[in-house]
């Protein structure tokens, strides 16, 4: 059965900023994804993607990132809220692909220094992902007070987030399985 293939859910760390609090969040979420049975994952740090700023879109596509997204059944995007918006570099990276995203699931983990857990950046990013052809889920990860959520070694200090991310990932994996079946077996015509 082709459905026996593991679901692949890379975690995208969506900021290049020095001292980013989102890195601890991304590594925590990556660990939670990796614990799930028949699910594979890897961290995609957009800082490591060599994309020119001299053009945009598929003209500056990075083959490694493209291959990762192409293989993916779903994405987790860990996105900090900068002035209520998403990092421009994340948008620049996301815009380099198209067919790789169509009818794939995406879940968002917002990160903020304040108490709203990146809710505003999540709302801003949703229409972008919809236009890319992705399917969003109705659970989010909301990481408030990000500077105080982890110790210096990146260890999570508030265990409540484990249960919250478990609910988020259950929904994301379900959607990833449903959409894979749809992509591969349900005809548009």
């Amino acid at each position, binding site marked *: 059965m*082709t459905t026996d*293939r593991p679901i692949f859910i890379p975690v995208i760390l969506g900021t290049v900023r020095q001292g980013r609090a989102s890195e601890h969040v991304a590594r925590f979420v990556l660990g939670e994804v990796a614990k799930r049975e028949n699910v594979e994952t890897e961290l995609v740090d957009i800082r490591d993607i060599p994309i020119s700023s001299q053009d945009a*879109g598929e003209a500056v596509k990075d083959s490694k990132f493209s291959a990762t997204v*192409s*293989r993916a*059944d779903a994405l987790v995007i860990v996105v900090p809220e900068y002035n209520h918006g998403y990092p421009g570099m994340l948008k620049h990276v996301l815009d380099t692909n*198209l*067919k*790789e995203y*169509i*009818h794939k699931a995406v879940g968002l983990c917002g990160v903020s220094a304040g108490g709203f857990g990146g809710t505003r950046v999540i709302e801003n990013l949703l229409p972008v992902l919809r236009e890319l*052809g992705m399917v969003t889920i109705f659970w989010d990860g909301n990481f408030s007070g990000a500077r105080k959520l982890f110790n210096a070694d990146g260890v999570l200090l508030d265990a409540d987030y484990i249960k919250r991310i478990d609910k988020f990932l259950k929904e994301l994996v379900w959607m990833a399985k449903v959409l*894979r079946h*749809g*992509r*591969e*077996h*349900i*005809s*548009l*015509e």
Partner: protein
Amino acid sequence: MTKTTKMICPDCGVEMNHHADKIDYAVAAAAVDVAQESAIDPVLGGVLEEAHSCPECGKTQLRPKAPEESDTTQS
């Protein structure tokens, strides 16, 4: 009723599943020759592309949407 030719997965050799149509407005905006202009759907205002995925390996391929052919089967 319409029918189109199935895409074949370049890696697995099996029939792929057509699961989405995507409209590309960028080609229309940048069209420089007759061939590109003729590919623009006059109603939708862009070039329609079909997304096909392989049931064996999951690979997705795009292709310009084929002109619709009438089903000649008579009943």
